[in-house]
C-alpha cells in the first residue's frame, strides 16, 4: 500500500459521485449544492466504485484501482464535462440569513466539538480490527472471502452450495443480503489488501460525507446558518450513530445517509420546485434495496411519497387511495419478482398470528427504553415531540416541514409496527435491531427537529424564493 493509492481510492468516489450529482441536478453554483455534491457525491460515488469493482474486477479484486479505477475516473470526467457543458447561469443567489444573527459562534463550537470527536473516532478505527458481529459474520465476511480468494464468487444458500460442489460458489449467513456494500468494501480493500482498520476507515468517510450533505441540504431547504450548524452538530454527536462509525462494518449508516438524502431531495423537488432533484430521489430509490433488505421498504415509502405528492391537487381526496394502490402494486410486483424483502416480511407475519400482550408490553418497554431510557440519542427523541407540539402553529405553516413530518411519522410507525406487532419483537426486546432501524431515520429526524424549531418568520424561505 502507498499513500497515493489510498488517497486515489478515496478521491475517486468523490469525483465520480459529485460529477454524477452535477450531471443530474445541474452545476452546483451555490455553496449548499457544492456541499451536497461533495457529501452525497462521496457516498454514491463509493457505491458506484463498488459496482465498478463487481463489473470490472470480479476476477481480480486485489487490483480494484487498476481495473475499475480508470473507468471510474473516465465516468467522473465525462459526468463533470457534460455537467459543465450543460450548465445554465444561476437563477438563485445566495440564501439569505436573518440580519444581525451571528452564525459563526455556532460554526466554531460545532467544528471544535465534532473535530475533536472526529480525531477520536478516526484514531480508534485505526486501532482496532473489525469488532461488530454482523460486520465479521456477514458484510465483511463476504468481502474478505472475495479479496483473499481472488474472485468475487456468488453467495448461495447452504443446500445449493452443497449441491454444486464443483462450482466456485460460496455460502454464509448473509448469502441473501444485497452485495453492494461488500463490493464497496472490496473497492476500499483494493489498494491496502485485507487490513481491517484501513477498510473500516470508510465509515469515517461516510460520517464526514453525511454531515457535509446534511449541512448543504438544510441550507438548501432554507434553514439559516446558525440552525444549520446546530443541526449538523446534533446529528454528528448522536452516540449510536458515532458507534456505527467507530465500529464500522454495518450497513445501517449507509442506509441512514441515503434515506435522509432521498427525503431531502424529495422535499426540494416537491416543495422547492427543483425538478432535477427527482433524479436524485430516483437514484436513491434504486440504490437503497441494494444496500440492505429494509432499504426496499424505505424505497417504497419514498416512491409512494413521490407518487402521492405528484398527483394533481384536484385529486387530493383520492390521493390516499392512489398512494395505497401504488404501494399495493409495488408489493405485488415484489412478490411476483420474489424480492428478498417479501420473504423476510412473510416470515415475520407468519410468526405473528397469535398476539401476546405480555410480549407486546415487553417490546413496548424495550422500544421506549431505546428511545428514552438509554444513551443512544442524547436528547433527540425528547426534543422532537416537544418541539413538534410546542411550535406546531409555526411549523404547520411550512409545507416542507409538514411533509417531512409525515415522512418521518410514517417511517417511525412502520418501525413501531414491525417491532411491536410482529415476530421481530424479540429484536426489540434484545435491543439488537430496533435502535439500528431508528438510526436509519436519524438524519431525517434531526432535520425535522431543526425545521420545526423555526419561528413563523423563518419558515418556508424555500417556498418564498
Amino acid at each position, binding site marked *: 500500500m502507498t499513500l497515493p493509492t489510498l488517497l486515489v481510492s478515496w478521491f475517486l468516489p468523490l469525483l465520480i459521485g459529485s460529477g454524477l450529482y452535477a450531471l443530474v441536478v445541474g452545476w452546483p453554483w451555490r455553496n449548499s449544492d457544492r456541499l451536497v455534491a461533495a457529501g452525497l457525491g462521496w457516498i454514491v460515488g463509493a457505491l458506484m466504485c463498488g459496482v465498478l469493482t463487481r463489473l470490472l474486477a470480479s476476477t481480480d479484486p486485489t487490483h480494484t484501482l487498476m481495473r475499475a479505477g480508470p473507468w471510474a475516473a473516465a465516468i467522473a470526467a465525462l459526468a463533470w464535462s457534460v455537467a459543465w457543458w450543460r450548465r445554465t447561469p444561476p437563477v438563485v443567489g445566495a440564501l439569505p440569513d436573518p440580519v444581525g444573527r451571528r452564525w459563526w459562534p455556532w460554526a466554531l463550537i460545532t467544528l471544535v*466539538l465534532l473535530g*475533536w*470527536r472526529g480525531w*477520536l*473516532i478516526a*484514531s*480508534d478505527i485505526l*486501532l*482496532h*480490527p473489525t*469488532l*461488530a*458481529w*454482523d*460486520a465479521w*459474520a456477514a458484510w465483511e*465476511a463476504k468481502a*474478505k*472471502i*472475495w479479496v*483473499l*480468494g481472488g*474472485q468475487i464468487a456468488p453467495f448461495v444458500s*447452504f*443446500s445449493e452450495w*452443497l449441491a454444486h*460442489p*464443483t*462450482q466456485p*460458489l460460496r*455460502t*454464509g449467513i448473509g448469502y441473501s443480503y444485497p452485495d453492494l456494500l461488500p463490493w464497496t468494501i472490496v473497492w476500499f480493500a483494493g489498494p491496502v*489488501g485485507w*487490513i*481491517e*482498520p*484501513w477498510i473500516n476507515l470508510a465509515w469515517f468517510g461516510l460520517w464526514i460525507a453525511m454531515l457535509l450533505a446534511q449541512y448543504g441540504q438544510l441550507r438548501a431547504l432554507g434553514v439559516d446558518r446558525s440552525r444549520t450548524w446546530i443541526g449538523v452538530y446534533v446529528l454528528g*454527536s448522536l*452516540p*449510536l450513530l*458515532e*458507534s*456505527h462509525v*467507530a465500529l464500522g462494518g454495518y450497513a445501517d449508516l449507509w442506509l441512514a445517509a441515503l434515506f435522509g438524502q432521498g427525503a431531502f431531495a424529495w422535499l426540494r423537488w416537491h416543495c422547492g420546485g427543483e425538478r432535477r432533484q427527482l433524479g436524485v430521489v430516483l437514484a436513491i430509490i434504486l440504490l437503497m434495496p441494494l444496500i440492505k433488505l429494509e432499504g426496499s421498504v424505505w424505497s417504497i415509502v419514498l416512491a409512494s411519497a413521490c407518487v402521492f405528492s405528484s398527483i394533481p391537487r384536484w385529486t387530493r381526496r383520492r390521493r390516499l387511495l392512489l398512494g395505497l394502490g401504488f404501494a399495493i402494486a409495488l408489493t405485488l410486483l415484489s412478490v411476483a419478482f420474489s424480492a428478498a424483502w417479501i420473504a423476510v416480511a412473510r416470515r415475520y407475519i407468519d410468526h405473528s398470528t397469535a398476539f401476546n400482550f405480555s410480549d407486546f408490553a415487553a417490546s413496548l418497554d424495550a422500544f421506549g427504553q*431505546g428511545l*428514552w*431510557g*438509554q*444513551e*443512544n440519542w*442524547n*436528547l433527540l427523541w*425528547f426534543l422532537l415531540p416537544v418541539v413538534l407540539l*410546542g411550535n406546531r402553529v409555526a411549523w404547520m405553516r411550512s409545507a416542507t416541514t409538514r411533509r417531512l413530518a409525515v415522512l418521518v411519522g410514517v417511517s417511525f410507525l412502520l418501525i413501531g409496527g414491525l417491532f411491536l406487532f410482529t415476530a421481530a419483537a424479540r429484536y426489540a*426486546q*434484545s*435491543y*439488537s435491531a430496533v*435502535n*439500528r432501524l431508528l438510526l436509519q431515520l436519524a438524519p431525517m429526524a434531526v432535520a425535522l427537529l431543526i425545521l420545526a424549531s423555526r419561528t413563523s418568520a423563518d419558515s418556508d424561505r424555500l417556498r418564498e424564493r
Partner: protein
Amino acid sequence: MNRASYAVASFVVALVVGTSALAMWAAGVDPRSPLVAATELTLPGSRFHPVFGSAATELQALRVTAPAADFYTLQATDLASVVAKDVSILRYRFADFPRTLELSLVFRTGEAPDDVQSISLPRPDGREMTFDLSRIPSWRGSITELGFAQFPTAQLVPPSAGFQPFVLERAQLESISWRGRLATLFDSWRERRPWQLISISAVGPAETGDHSPHGPRLPLVLAIAVGALLAFAFLLLRLRGAALRVLAFAAAAVAWLICDLSWQRDLTYKRNADADVWGAIPIAKRQDHVADERLKELALHLQATLSSEPDTRRVLVSAPTPHDVLRLIYHAAPLNMGVLAGADAQHAPPGTIVVRYSDDQPSIRNGRLQFGGISLPGRTIEQQADFGIYAITAESQ
C-alpha cells in the same frame, strides 16, 4: 418584597426542591433513610486472599501480580454471616486497574453455600466506586464470603494480553443512606466501558437485553430536569413567548452538551482501551490479535492443512456456539466454509472436509462419523483434544 422578587425567589426555591426531588427519585433514595450510613463494614485489601492468580499484601492493600493459567484472577475473604439487607451499598477502590479487564463481585450466602453468585461491577477508574446491591435479587440472606474477580474483557481483549498488575485497596459494605444511594447514581453515570457486542445496537446497556440493574440514565434525568425548569419558569416567572423559547433553547443546549461530553468521555475510554490492546501492534497485524486467540490459531492451522485443496472444496464447521462457527469461518477465509447443521448436511458430497471445534469428539463406527444427530461416512485427517479434521469419503444418505 415586590411581586417580581417574590416570583424569582419562589422560582429558585422550586428549582432547588425540584432538583433535589429528581436526584432522590433517580437514586431511589428513601426519605426515611439516614443521611449517612449507620452501619459500615470496612474490608481492607490485605484482608482478601488470592483464590485464583498470585497476589501479595502491601501494607493495607493487596497487590495482584499474575493471573491463573486461564487468565482469571479472584480475591476473596470470609465474612461472619453479614445480613445482606443491612449492608446493600458496596464501595470499592482499586489502583492501576487495567482497562482491559472486567470486574465482578462474587459472593456466597449461608442459605446456598454451594452456589457462587457473580455480578458485573463498573470498572474502577482510580477513584472509589459505589454500587447498589439492593437492586440485585440474589443479594439476600446472610453473606458468608465476598470477593472480586477479574478477567480479560470478553470478545474484545486477547486473553493472554489482558492482565496488568493492580492493587485492591479496600472494599466497604454499608447500610442504605442518602449519601450511598446518590453516590451509586453518579457512579453509574460515570461508569466507562470498552466496546462490547451490544455497542453497535445500544449505548448504555452492558449486555443484550440490559439485565444489569441500574437507575435512570443521564439523558432521561436531564430531560426531566429541563422539563421541570421550563414548567417552573412558565408557572412562577410567567415567562412566555420569546423569553421562554430562549430559556428552552439554552436549557436544552446545556443538557445536550452534558450528555455529549459524557459520551465523549466514554468514547475516549473506549479508544484508550483499544490503544492498550492494539496500540503497540503494527496496523496490518491488529486483526491477528483477537479475543478468540484459539480460533485464530485453528484457522491458520486449517489454512495450512488444506492449502493443497482446490478453492471449491467444501469445508463444514461444527462448533458449540454460532459465535465460534462464524468466527472460525471468518478467520479461516478464504477457505470455502459452511455450517455443519440441518438435514442438508447429510448430503455433503464426497471429499467435503468437516472441522470439529469442541471437546466432544465424534464417535466413529463402521466408517461413519457421528456429529450430534448427523451421521456421515468419513475418515479422520487429524484428531486433537479440542478440534478435529475429517474427510467425507462417499456419498452419504
